[in-house]
């Protein structure tokens, strides 16, 4: 079972919910949590575990071999992303712009642009007493999150069995990285806040899930801090509200220290139970 935890905007409590939910579920089941917010991974701050595996993640980019190159310019013409250009009698490759489509490489008449791996980030696998945790971390200045996210998902698919509950902490927003983190999932939990910002972002996230034909439901975090807009919207659209987590300064304080919330705050644990029951029933 794969569950993605997403939100239209950052700071709605997505990480709080995924870390707490995974720890809560791990009491009774095999659980792996993956932090796919590769630009800002910080689930690790809430989970103490031992590093059991790490590897560099690469993407494939062409590398110019000048010996056989006839300077025909075909590669420059072929690349739609301006990642390879001909300057004088040299071919320059800009790895940040490359989408690894292989076109320049495979269409080069002299095989002068072999695809080579280039590091874009890291994958780390930690283990706590009963929870596995995997994070992807993009190197600073790298522009493309998607290849790294897909490698983390691949790693999890390989390493863990069908019966393991897989929780994906998705990046914020509604663009490519979120799609990559959501599309293979059985269910998406959208975390939002009951404010006009939360509502605006939730609507965008809902549109995205509908395009992807994803099953999804909403968790309202910091309930009571704003207005009723989110609830009214969900009711009107027939979107299930899985749980409402009350606004509580103590949650913010525990969060600020990097501590888990549910062992200390009863209402939070109740909400996790509701989420667990709901997703259990979705299958």
């Amino acid at each position, binding site marked *: 079972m794969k569950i993605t935890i997403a939100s239209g905007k950052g700071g709605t409590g997505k990480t709080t919910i995924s870390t707490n939910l995974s720890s809560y579920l791990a009491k009774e089941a095999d659980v792996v949590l993956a932090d796919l917010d590769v630009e800002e991974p910080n689930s690790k701050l809430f989970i103490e575990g031992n590093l059991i595996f790490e590897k560099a993640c690469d993407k494939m980019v062409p590398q110019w071999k000048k010996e056989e190159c006839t300077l025909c310019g075909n590669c420059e013409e072929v690349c739609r*992303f301006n990642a390879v250009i001909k300057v004088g009698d040299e071919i320059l490759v800009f790895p940040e712009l490359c989408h690894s489509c292989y076109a320049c490489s495979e269409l080069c008449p002299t095989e002068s642009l072999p695809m080579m791996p280039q590091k874009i980030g890291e994958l780390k696998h930690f283990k706590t007493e009963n929870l596995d945790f995997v994070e992807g971390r993009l190197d600073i200045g790298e522009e493309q999150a998607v290849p790294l996210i897909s490698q983390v998902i691949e790693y999890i698919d390989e390493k863990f069995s069908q019966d393991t509950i897989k929780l994906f902490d998705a990046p914020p927003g509604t663009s490519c990285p979120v799609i990559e983190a959501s599309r293979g999932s059985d269910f998406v939990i959208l975390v939002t806040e009951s404010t006009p910002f939360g509502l605006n972002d939730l609507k965008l996230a809902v549109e995205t899930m509908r395009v992807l034909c994803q099953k999804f439901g909403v968790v309202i975090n910091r309930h009571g801090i704003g207005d009723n807009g989110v609830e009214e919207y969900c009711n009107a659209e027939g979107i299930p509200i899985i749980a409402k987590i009350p606004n509580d300064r103590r949650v913010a304080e525990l969060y600020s220290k990097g501590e888990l919330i549910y062992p200390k705050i009863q209402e939070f644990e109740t909400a996790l139970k509701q989420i667990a029951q709901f997703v259990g029933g979705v299958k």
Partner: protein
Amino acid sequence: MKEVVIISGKGGTGKTSFAASFAYLEKENAVIADCDVDAANMHLLLEADFRYQEDFYSGEIAVIDEENCINCGECKEVCRFDAIHVIDDQHRVDPISCEGCWYCSRVCPVEAIDMKTQKVGDFYLSMTKAQSEMVHAKLGFAAENSGKLVAKVKNEAKKLTLANKKEFLIVDGSPGVGCPVISSLSGADLALLVTEATVSGLHDLKRVYKLVKSFNIEAACIINKYDLNIDVTKEIEAFLEEEDITLITKIAYDETFAKALSQAKTIIEYGDSSLKTEIEKSWQYIKNILRS
């Protein structure tokens, strides 16, 4: 013209509330740009009127002409993005997976593949309730290239600021450390880092500052919710000192942010509060830095 970009690495630090409040204070003397195109929110607080809209095209997707396609499978063979599938004995492109690389169209023996430009979002110019002009955008769902849309928002906002001889350009930056935030930072005079006193706030501050530093942009910082965790606040202050980042102010945990938001008001309009005074002073301080 002086440009300040407000960024936070992580969301939920109050970044947009600060940006909107500064914009409200500066009135028609500033141009506003919302570069958080993935989850644009500023228009709600500043009552943008969406007076001008333009489609934003970027990237392309492959479209197979089924009449001419001979189902040879060449395209599927070369596509590295698993975007071509055989459905009901016909090769078809999944538009969400297609990266628009053109490889398939170059190898199709019967030229049955067309590349079509895609609308990926909307670009807007608005007047706000603060009487300032605002440049913003909305990225379509399942779209990519938000970096390009951010760059467009930034460039148009810059042009507008110069053309109308405004003193300040206030930019609500993009989240993360990837392509969009790089686009939103480029060319700024000052990066205002809004962080909060949480372990993840500090962690993200350090990551995003690396980026700011690599662009050689002067940085200043506001610590929000500093009283949530005094120890982390001290760590943040130590970090700022070490990196020579100006600390503008520290702001206590305050539900006024959410309350003002729920009425679609900036902190400045919401009524007199210590928070309002603090934000007014902060903006003055930031202006002094920008002018010096």
